């Protein structure tokens, strides 16, 4: 038994002891360092660039500008290749650009002996611009006479649907109708390890890229497209990685390092972005502007939700409209019995480029939905928790959006469990007289749904190769990438569970190398335990079968009577009697002169289901009205992620997600000047990423449904914890103060404006 047990993470010791090697830790002989020359304006065109002074600095090896790079536009989103080219990502990037679309756009790049020299040289490159007015607000961007940020115009994508009936009819049936406008802020992943990659050439015509990436195989393809180099001659290696949260589900710096080494006769070149560059010029979370309308009966039956959102992707499309599509679809799984209309548009802007970020558009749309739900319940005078319990989906409901039957739907159970754990009713009664004075108290709840992969939007392919080593241990090769979420540990547990081999004897090869690692599209969409778990399962079944067949050959006992118990083969009916150790069996298979061979299994599997996962947040807050500060007194997430593979790492996932959402709720906001497009706070001092001292104790619980479409009953858990805390906190602030914040973050300075407007201060 390995699944369901809180075994120690496979990488725990390497990480806490500092022995884990990250991209920057490898010493590469003759390594040169690249630094970008970045635009100082947000919108315009370079009319003159002079690199002469920079070239004269000692230690500068090369400088390339937008004039030197291939002119083929490429898409950077870390999606599988779309055979249907109509569904392909928007190709709007060049490695270096003459057209400036954000402050910090990449115009040229300097390669030097040291990073310091490269920085000093980059500062000496003289650039003249023809500046255009920066377009930052949706009004300015969508104005009829607005300049086109890209040749195709300022709208990246749009779609709308109306499911579960007709809004027109539902609106007539609704006795209470409410409208609201809610918006979310641009936030950044703030993964510990900034974007970093280096590349060199080997054997004349092979490019090797070592990169902190979530998607090594996709990265290989996109580099090939960007620099016109054969895919088979590019190898991408992913060592230990210090977090990504979606910012590395995008191919950002790999093409340029590959280009540089190619241009420089294979010289190894590294690009190591600073924190400031990472925040401003890699990827952010799309800010959403939502107009929402909902209707219900007086008894609390939700009739319809009508959501109209604008998603701002910034300077480049990156994941483009996919974010708004994915974000919107979740509401239909939460409230599948209501009529739902969703109208979404994604637009360019002269500001940092948004891409994938943990939960991919869902935190934004769920914030809008759960603010509206709260405001409706309050208008109707119904307990907001009762309102949700009454209207959330149930097992067997059909998702009106994709017409799929929802096989496991634990949301209502999560709400009921949370009600008890949190003592919702007790707190509600206790807080009745805490709604006046300087410190006011309130409680809030919000729920969410998510998916366990991207199917049918994208192919869901995953692979697993298992090898029985001569000592009886097992190696697991998976294309799914460990980026801190604990997937290596989960896969080892799965392989151990299904083969019967000890967890300690199962080693997952954590470094992906596209030359050796079987194909997988990477770490995103909370897909790994659900999608890759199925490949691991199938490979483990096959390996077990092969081991037992070989045991039959060696021992002469019918394999049907045998099983694997830890490090040995035993009788099924009498496990205490050993027939042969795995070590002896494996040694025999490798070295017996006349029989056997290396025992391996290899599976590549495409998952064609996508189980929705669910959960909710309960939170109690104190609000200091005078100082506009919110203190979280208690917060608990309750999740239906199917069966939990590892309770300890699952808890860690939930804590991390809650942390991010609390950050988005109360602290974080990447600010861009609406007139100039200047980015104000792309550093960790001015970007108020919360510290550990700002975090309350984080609590979580699970409702373990048994999802039949996955191999171990699992559903997604990586991203979901970061969805519902922010709207729950908003609803608690409303409960405490009577003021309904309509935008994130609910930071002191933003709350000040709202409290002032409401006459509280």
């Amino acid at each position: 038994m390995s699944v369901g047990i809180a075994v120690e993470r496979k990488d725990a010791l390497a990480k806490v002891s500092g022995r884990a090697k990250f991209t920057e830790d490898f010493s590469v002989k003759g390594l040169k360092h690249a630094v970008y020359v970045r635009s100082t304006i947000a919108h315009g065109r370079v009319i003159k660039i002079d690199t002469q002074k920079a070239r004269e600095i000692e230690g500068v090896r090369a400088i390339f500008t937008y004039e030197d790079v291939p002119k083929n536009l490429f898409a950077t989103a870390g999606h599988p290749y779309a055979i249907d080219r109509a569904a392909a990502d928007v190709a709007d990037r060049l490695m270096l650009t003459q057209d400036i679309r954000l402050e910090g756009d990449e115009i040229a790049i300097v390669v030097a002996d040291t990073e310091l020299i490269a920085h000093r040289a980059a500062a000496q490159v003289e650039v003249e611009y023809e500046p255009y007015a920066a377009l930052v607000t949706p009004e300015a961007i969508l104005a009829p006479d607005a300049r086109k940020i890209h040749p195709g115009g300022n709208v990246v994508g749009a779609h709308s649907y109306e499911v579960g009936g007709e809004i027109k009819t539902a609106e007539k049936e609704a006795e209470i109708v409410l409208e609201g406008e809610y918006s979310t802020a641009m936030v950044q992943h703030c993964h510990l390890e900034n974007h970093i990659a280096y590349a060199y050439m080997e054997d004349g015509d092979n490019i090797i890229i070592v990169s902190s990436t979530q998607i090594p195989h996709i990265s290989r393809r996109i580099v090939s497209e960007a620099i016109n180099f054969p895919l088979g001659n590019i190898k991408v290696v992913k060592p230990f990685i210090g977090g990504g949260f979606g910012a590395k589900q995008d191919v950002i710096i790999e093409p340029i390092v590959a280009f540089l080494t190619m241009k420089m006769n294979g010289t190894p070149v590294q690009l190591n972005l600073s924190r400031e560059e990472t925040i401003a010029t890699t990827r952010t979370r799309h800010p959403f502007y939502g107009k929402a309308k909902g209707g219900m009966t007086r008894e609390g039956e939700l009739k319809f939700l009508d959501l109209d959102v604008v998603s701002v992707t910034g300077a480049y499309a990156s994941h483009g409209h996919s974010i708004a599509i994915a974000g919107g679809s979740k509401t239909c799984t939460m409230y599948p019995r209501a009529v739902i209309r969703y109208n979404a548009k994604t637009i360019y802007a002269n500001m940092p480029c948004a891409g994938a970020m943990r939960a991919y558009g869902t935190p934004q749309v769920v914030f809008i939905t759960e603010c509206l739900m709260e405001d409706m319940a309050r208008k109707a005078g119904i307990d907001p928790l009762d309102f949700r319990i009454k209207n959330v989906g149930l097992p067997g409901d059909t998702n009106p959006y994709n017409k799929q039957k929802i096989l496991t739907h634990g949301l209502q159970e999560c709400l009921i469990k949370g009600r008890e754990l949190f003592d919702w009713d007790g707190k509600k009664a206790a807080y009745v007289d805490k709604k006046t004075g300087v410190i006011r108290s309130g409680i809030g709840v919000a729920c969410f749904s998510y998916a366990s992969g991207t199917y049918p939007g994208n192919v869901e392919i995953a692979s697993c190769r298992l090898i029985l080593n001569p000592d009886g241990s097992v190696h697991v090769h998976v294309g799914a990438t460990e980026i801190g979420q604990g997937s290596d540990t989960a896969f080892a547990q799965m392989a151990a569970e299904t083969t019967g081999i000890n967890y300690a004897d199962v080693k997952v090869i954590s470094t992906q190398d596209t030359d050796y690692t079987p194909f997988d599209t990477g770490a995103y969409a909370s897909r790994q335990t659900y999608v890759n778990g199925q490949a691991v399962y199938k490979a483990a079944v096959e390996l077990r079968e092969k081991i037992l067949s070989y045991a039959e050959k060696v021992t002469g006992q019918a394999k049907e009577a045998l099983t694997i118990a830890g490090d040995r083969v035993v009788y099924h009916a009498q496990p205490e009697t050993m027939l042969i150790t795995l070590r002896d069996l494996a040694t025999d298979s490798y070295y017996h002169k006349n029989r056997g061979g290396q025992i391996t299994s290899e599976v590549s599997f495409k998952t064609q289901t996508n189980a929705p996962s669910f959960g909710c947040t309960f939170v109690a807050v104190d609000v200091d009205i005078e100082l506009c500060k919110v203190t979280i007194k208690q917060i608990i997430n309750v999740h239906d992620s199917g069966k939990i593979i590892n309770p300890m790492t699952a808890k860690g996932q939930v804590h991390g997600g809650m942390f991010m959402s609390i950050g988005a709720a109360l602290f974080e906001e990447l600010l861009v000047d609406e007139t100039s497009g200047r980015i104000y706070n792309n550093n960790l001092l001015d970007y108020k990423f919360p510290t550990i001292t700002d975090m309350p104790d984080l609590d979580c619980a699970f409702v373990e449904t048994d999802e039949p479409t996955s191999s171990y009953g699992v559903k997604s858990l990586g991203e979901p914890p970061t969805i519902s805390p922010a709207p729950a906190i908003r609803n608690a602030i409303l409960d405490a103060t009577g003021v309904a914040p309509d935008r994130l973050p609910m930071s002191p300075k933003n709350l000040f404006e709202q409290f002032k407007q409401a006459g509280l201060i």
Partner: protein
Amino acid sequence: MFNIEKYSKVKSVSEAVSLLEKNPRARLIAGGTDVLIRLREGEEDYTELIDIHDLAELMDIQKRENGDISMGAGVTFSQVMENAIIKESIPVIAQAAGTIGGPQVRNVATIGGNICNGAISADSAAALFVLDAVLEIERVNGARELPVREFYLGPGRVALEHGDVLKAIIVKQENYAGYGANYYKYAMRNAMDIATIGCAATCKLDGEVIEELKIAFTVAAPKPMRAQTAEDGARGKRVTDENIEKIAALVMEDLNPRDSWRASKNFRLQVIRILAKRVITAAIEDAGVQR
């Protein structure tokens, strides 16, 4: 990697003073938590460094026979927080020190560096202002003393000339004995932040009457400021909620917070008003009157 062209580790303050004299471009580095940031940003003004970090003569904290307390400028904030003399006699300094950065920063950042940097947000400044601290500054022609209230000239500017080395900070007994005190740092997060507004107060009571109130703010004007009008208005007033409100309302007479993208002027005014009230109340409580 930093662009450090010249670096000298000195063994004494006098060596630092004479090296500064000979090197017009040289700058001092102590804890480095400000200087290294400037270097990382590529500022060319910091390429020649004289390192006074860990100099024993700058690390001393002592109570003199007359009761005055002297803190070496090179004392780190962690040392300030843990020092028995400070904790007993001028705990408001330890309280302010505890709000600076995070543990790693406090382990190296020095109290002298914090004020010589000239930042209007310096957490130690508000506390030193209400304690009427005096600075001992060493220079080639000898030492001089300067009240901390005269030290700040404007944002990033202090009354140090090239060749000056801040040696010690003195808090006289008359300025702490019998006073209650409090400091509140209002920031957007609980650690690793600079103050949106900082406020310190000391208060001496005669029964239920305020004999002396000193209140200082950071980030509320182009330099750390005492709110003199409020202090004058407080003298002789009975401790009542109404009086505290009135005194708090007077602090604005001496302050002029800026309007910026970090925080609007109106928001800062709100914070100033509330902190004045709360910090005065806390200082009064610390002086012995329970509110």
